[in-house]
């Protein structure tokens, strides 16, 4: 296993108003585990803001994780031992393995050596190539900096790499602005593989390119992987590309993994409601699909929804997905004031996270409305009981909880729908 990351977290602090009170945090990656085996392409898909790029940067040590563990180049046996130690809570054994393989506890010189084995290609080829360096210098830089190769040998290697990425040798003396988008991305790829890395992280390598050029670059990536036998992490928002390229796929949503498994299976028979709607949104030529259009947008990463992060948009959400009184209040307010127009003087107050008080409507009427709308308004499914109260009704909700990744039908999935089914 080239990379085995456990429970990675990255919280970015953001300023609190006037510098007072507690600092807020953007939870870009929140407890994610990922494994990248050698000689395999692992796809990582998700919407923008789901934390997939941050995860890529964490694995290549470009940003330091807030917490979590990254093991690099661990033999299978040791990895199994480590996982066993994690489960049984054997701290000594765990620490011993971390000492040997962890990327996070490495000395400065050790890191410099390890960086040779990590290659990265960034999304925007124009921004990631220094405009004042020639292609030769760009490709040579990582080799010289990490001490992988020097002098004449490195120069020889540049031409070899240019041939490998199918660029003519005279391009070595050109500057980035003289190249087209596809050519720049080839140079970026040549730079990433110049030190024969064991892990190649490609962060949206083709999203700035045309389809015709994209196809060329994808073919090149496959070829290079074949040759280097390295692990590849392909970060992309294009599901068709992920399907075409990868063996294994991870689907992220709001900083969490929602589903992971064999790429072909996850994409063809998605199970998690988010994956299902994501796959249904992919336009495919000549396929008329039943679209599942998600309401709203990805959640705010500072104030994440309680319980399952996907529940406010989820078409399948049910009682225990994590509905809170604020969400129920918003929907009830709309129903009472707009759709049913009960009375001008209805008032809803929040009474803790899982209870509400409603004034100006009789409990019978409220019950009838909630029963009638339960199917269409998902948040009302969380209503556990309604009690008559002074001047109105009191509503109590089910207490939801957050799902964890569980094995189901040959994949790992993080959804309460499947947890309760398997029970």
């Amino acid at each position, binding site marked *: 296993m080239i990379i085995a990351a456990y429970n990675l977290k990255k919280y970015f602090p953001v300023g609190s108003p006037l510098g007072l009170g507690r600092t807020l945090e953007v939870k870009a990656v929140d407890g994610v585990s990922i494994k990248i085996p050698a000689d395999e392409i692992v796809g990582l898909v998700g919407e923008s803001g789901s934390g997939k790029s941050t995860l890529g940067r964490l694995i290549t040590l470009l940003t330091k994780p807030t917490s979590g563990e990254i093991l690099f180049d661990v033999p299978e046996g040791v990895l199994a031992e480590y996982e066993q130690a994690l489960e049984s809570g054997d701290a000594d054994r765990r620490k011993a393995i971390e000492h040997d393989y962890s990327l996070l506890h490495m000395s400065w010189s050790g890191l410099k050596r390890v960086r040779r084995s990590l290659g990265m290609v960034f999304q925007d080829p124009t921004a990631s190539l220094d405009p004042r360096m020639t292609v030769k210098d760009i490709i040579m830089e990582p080799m010289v900096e990490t001490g992988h190769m020097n002098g004449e040998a490195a120069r020889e290697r540049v031409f070899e790499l240019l041939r490998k990425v199918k660029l003519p040798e005279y391009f070595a003396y050109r500057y980035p602005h003289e190249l087209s988008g596809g050519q720049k991305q080839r140079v970026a790829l040549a730079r990433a593989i110049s030190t024969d890395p064991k892990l190649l992280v490609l962060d949206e390598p083709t999203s700035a390119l045309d389809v015709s*050029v994209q196809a060329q670059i994808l073919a090149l990536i496959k070829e290079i992987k074949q040759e280097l036998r390295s692990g590849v992490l392909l970060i992309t928002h294009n599901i068709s590309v992920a399907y075409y390229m990868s063996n294994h796929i991870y689907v992220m949503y709001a900083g969490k993994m929602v589903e992971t498994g064999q790429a072909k299976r996850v994409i063809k028979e998605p199970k998690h409601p988010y994956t299902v709607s994501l796959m249904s949104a992919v336009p495919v030529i000549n396929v008329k699909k039943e679209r599942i259009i998600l309401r709203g947008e990805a959640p705010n990463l500072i104030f994440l929804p309680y319980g399952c992060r996907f529940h406010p948009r989820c078409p399948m959400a049910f009682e225990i997905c994590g509905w809170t009184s604020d969400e129920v209040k918003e929907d009830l307010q709309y129903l009472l004031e707009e759709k049913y127009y009960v009375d001008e003087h209805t008032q809803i107050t929040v009474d803790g996270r899982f209870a509400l008080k409603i004034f100006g409507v009789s409990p019978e009427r409220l019950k009838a409305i909630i029963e009638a709308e339960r199917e269409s308004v998902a948040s009302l499914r969380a209503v556990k009981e309604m009690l008559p109260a002074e001047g109105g009704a009191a509503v109590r909700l089910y207490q939801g909880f957050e799902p964890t990744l569980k094995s189901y039908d040959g994949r790992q999935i993080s959804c309460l729908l499947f947890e309760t089914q398997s029970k």
Partner: protein
Amino acid sequence: MSELLTVRDLRLEFYTRRGMYKVLNGVNLSLRKGEVLGLAGESGSGKSTLGLTIMGLVADNAKIVGGDVIFAEHGNLITNAVWPDGKYVAKRGRKIIKRLNSQLLHIRGKEMTMVFQDSMTSLNPLLKIGYQIGEVIYYHNPRLLAERALARNRATREDMREVVMLLKTREERDLTRFLNEKGLGGLYEQINSIWQRPGMSEVKKERAILSLAGQRLSGFEKSVLEAVRDNKPVTNVPLYRGYRKRLLIREGVRKAVELLSDLSVPHPEKVVDMYPHELSGGMRQRVVIAIALANNPKLVIMDEPTSALDVTIQAQVLELVKRLKSKGSSIVFISHDLSVLAEVSDRIAIMYAGSIVELGETYDIVNEPKHPYTVALLGAVPTLTEKEIRGIEGEIPDLKNLPSGCAFHPRCPYVMDVCKKLKPDLITLGGKRQVACFLFGDSK
């Protein structure tokens, strides 16, 4: 079906310090009423330039060498913008742009509108959303705004009760007649928008309609609005123009709420009070679409409206485009993503190096591509199947010195001798299919 837009042999060149670029090389296409025409091609093929040129939005270093853009009853839009033979002079270019701008002043933004790719840069960050939508109506149709405000002022509660009665019996023609008799034509839109809002109880709708009546206006406000309604020239009293604009845009914001709720934006009343940076990408794109649709244009040109969006948000926007189409809008949809085009458009035109190489019904283009370039382009699109995807060898040609003959011949697998010498014309193959290639027809 009648043609709404016809582009004939449009040719455009850009003059830069590095030389002359031939960006459009004889574009021919036509758009029917109520049709969505997809325009596909690699970047640098001139598809955005074509969209901009149809709108008359040409840079001052561009030279329209020849061609026609015939739009609805306005005839040829660029007659005056076509350069006669001779050298390019920068000063002259600016003059032509100025003339073109004044000619198109009342067509652009009203009958022909455009949605740009990046919604962040096409909205003004300093102005509220409601103002930006209202402004478009203020510039092109101030009369409508004045009528709306005055009708609300004049209507009495009794009138509105009558209206609600008419709405309930669902006689739409009676409603229009009733409103016209009472001289309340400006109310029609407002009533309809409230009545057709989904997910609102009838009681609430009735209340909203009743509350339209008898809005108070001061005597001065009324006189200003009446002057606008009667198309009186604007007097040059200091501060008057500004006051008039503010008054009308305040009404425009009300109209903006209606437009946004039509595009299923949640809480439109709040959105009109926000600034662009407060909205997410998908929401901003809807606002831009609302601006484009504000004056019920005949033609909307959408330049990569979904390229900056996520798939799930893209799906929402595509659904919106389909709804607009069913309402009868004519759209030119520019995208580099053939799978998106296949979903929304009736016909697809494929562009390469500044000219259309193939044009046909979506189904035919996707299933039986004729032109070698279309075949190659489709072969490069990753699909969710086991199909091996293949890139197109070579690069898009340098527009500074185009290859002789057919521009695609250096990359074409079926290249023949004739391709290197002559440029193929766009010929019609059996009905609706047009292709520019020597492999087809008898134009050898």
